[in-house]
């Protein structure tokens, strides 16, 4: 009798250990999903109150990495979104005085958490539209939850695959690797002309997409030759091995493809420490003021391209940049602009369509109108946003247009 009991005890302990392992294996899994607030409600709510006009607020969901490796980008984007909600609510809201209310969930840059965030916002919080998705892998997974049921504006995901099997309510604001590539890869090929390039790329959908874009755009005979490619994981902190291997390939240029500010700055810092003194290229869309701050001197001379910087000269940007500076005490970057665009476009499209829930109408309005945003004029083709872009570089720790 005692022996049988002993066996059950052992089995019980085994199951307990397995349960611990399963629970503990999801990295960051048991942390709270709030960005900072101490209230008891699980999602972060910001935006107008329901009391003032008595009209029901328009709830827009944001699923972004509030914590995790892409948290810096995620929070920058959220700041832009908050700015948009604020500006719209100050103007009086949309659809007859309805205020915009933002509900934010943390996707922690993990596809599983992204799906959870989307599901919660759509099914529990019953938002009118979804925005968000910083990492392509997360966006791709989460889009399946939103497909054919709710407006889904993919805010910063870049991989082309995010628009595969597109449902009519899915739109994407950021440029794809192909689109960036058209400008930047052509520029490197025609203007900078390095004979050989070594590539250090993150092992994700985004990274793989960038490799494909490079191979397509540099396919002809007088394009730079990619002599070595090394991959890294988003959880890596030390790139010395990969960089040593790349240095041994003796290429004229180093092309870095990373979606995390800390990783990109660590890579260029560690590369400088290893004695790299070749052309420094950073995948388009990744040049960011925080990157320059963290990388310090190692950032000088890095060349990249992007669709937005805070000094762009147009009416809307002057207003947006000024208000942003006053509110947050820093220059708005591309991420902030995209976050702003997501909420702004959703709200304006709903207003123009005259409804917050007729997604067929809203999607049609989005697709067929011309929109003015801080980056200039934006139009959509099959859900993909199109604007303009420029080549940038870092000089004396400032991001400036490349001359």
């Amino acid at each position, binding site marked *: 009798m005692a022996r049988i009991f002993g066996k059950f005890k052992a089995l019980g302990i085994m199951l307990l250990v397995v349960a611990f392992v399963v629970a503990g294996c999801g990295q960051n899994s048991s942390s709270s999903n709030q960005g900072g607030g101490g209230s008891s409600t699980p999602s972060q709510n910001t935006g107008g109150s329901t009391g003032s006009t008595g009209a029901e607020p328009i709830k827009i969901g944001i699923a972004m990495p509030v914590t995790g490796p892409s948290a810096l980008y995620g929070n920058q984007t959220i700041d832009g979104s908050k700015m948009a909600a604020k500006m719209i609510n100050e103007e009086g809201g949309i659809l007859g005085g309805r205020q915009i209310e933002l509900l934010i969930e943390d996707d*922690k840059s993990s596809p599983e958490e992204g799906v959870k965030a989307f599901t919660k916002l759509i099914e529990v919080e019953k938002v009118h539209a979804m925005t968000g998705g910083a990492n392509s892998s997360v966006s791709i997974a989460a889009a399946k939850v939103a497909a054919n049921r709710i407006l889904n504006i993919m805010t910063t995901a870049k991989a082309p695959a995010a628009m595969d099997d597109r449902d009519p309510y899915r739109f994407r604001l950021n440029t794809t690797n192909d689109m960036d590539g058209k400008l930047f890869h052509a520029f490197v090929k025609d203007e900078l002309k390095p004979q050989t390039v070594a590539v250090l790329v993150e092992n994700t959908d985004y990274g793989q997409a960038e490799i494909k874009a490079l191979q397509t755009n540099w396919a002809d005979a007088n394009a730079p030759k990619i002599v070595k490619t090394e991959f890294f994981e988003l959880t890596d902190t030390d790139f010395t*091995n990969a960089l040593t*291997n790349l*240095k041994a390939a003796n290429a004229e240029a180093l092309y870095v493809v990373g979606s995390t500010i800390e990783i990109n700055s*660590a890579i260029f810092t560690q590369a400088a420490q290893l004695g790299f003194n070749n052309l420094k290229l950073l995948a388009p869309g990744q040049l960011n003021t925080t990157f320059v701050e963290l990388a310090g001197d190692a950032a000088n001379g890095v060349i990249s391209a992007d669709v937005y910087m805070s000094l762009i000269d147009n009416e809307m940007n002057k207003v947006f940049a000024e208000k942003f500076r006053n509110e947050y005490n820093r220059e708005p970057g591309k991420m902030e602009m995209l976050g702003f665009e997501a909420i702004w476009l959703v709200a304006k499209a709903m207003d123009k369509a005259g409804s917050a829930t007729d997604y067929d109408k809203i999607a049609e309005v989005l697709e067929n109108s011309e929109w003015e945003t801080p980056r200039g004029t934006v139009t959509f083709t099959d859900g993909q946003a199109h604007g303009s872009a420029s080549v940038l570089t870092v000089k004396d720790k400032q991001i400036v247009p490349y001359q």
Partner: protein
Amino acid sequence: MSQLLFNGLVIGMSYALIAVGLTIIFGILGIVNFAHGEFYMLGAYALFTFQNMIGTHYLVGALLSILTIAAIAFLIEYLTLRPLQKSDHLNSLLATFALSIILTNVVQIIYTATPRQIAGAFNQVVEIGGIFATQQKLLVIIVSALIILGLALFMKFHGLGKLMRAVSQNHMGAMVCGIPIKRIYSVSFVIGIVLSATAGILIGPTTYATPTMGTLAMLKGFVVVILGGLGSVPGAVVGGMILGIAETLGSSFFGNAWKDLVGFVLLVAVLLIYPQGLFGFKRREQ
């Protein structure tokens, strides 16, 4: 090639530090410390707090971090592990597992999961015969070597070190001889944890800190300890160097993406072919 060996040496030394700590805790307390990697992470975060948030110099920050973590380790041993010493070893194992989860999440709540840069004071690049090294990396090698040497001398010649060795060889016998076992446990645990934290303090400035950085460090620590033999300090040192260099060479041949695989393949190979490890010995039943 020499650059690769140097890289491997730096990594190897940090693995050795972590593994020596792990093996001391196992050899003397008989506890498999699942939270070992978390103390490596705590070391980096403590340094971040003192150096980057409060603003002390790296060396002062390092010293304060070590003292803080030694105090935390002492408290943990006294409050949670000592009461469990009398019961099944499985309880201590679960306790350290719980500790690792608690520590990771506490740090994440306080510091958030956003990576933290911990640039040290020694960032100058030095070129020695074609090898590029930062001063911090040289510091890792020199300080680790000094610590290991110091520990070896301590274990061999100092009274307390000899007592520790006695306990690791035979618990029962040591108690019968009147050795103050509880004090030895305390000291050993603190030493083991401080070694791990020191690795974090040394390596932290070469990169940045995240709350989950301890997981991989602990796994590598286990690989090294098994490679070198559970409970054997020389084994941990040699094992650490072997793993560090094997990983670096492996990443050069197979690509960086396969780097971590090298360690785990080595682990499986060792367990299959020579389970007691290079310097290991069969433990007597307690």
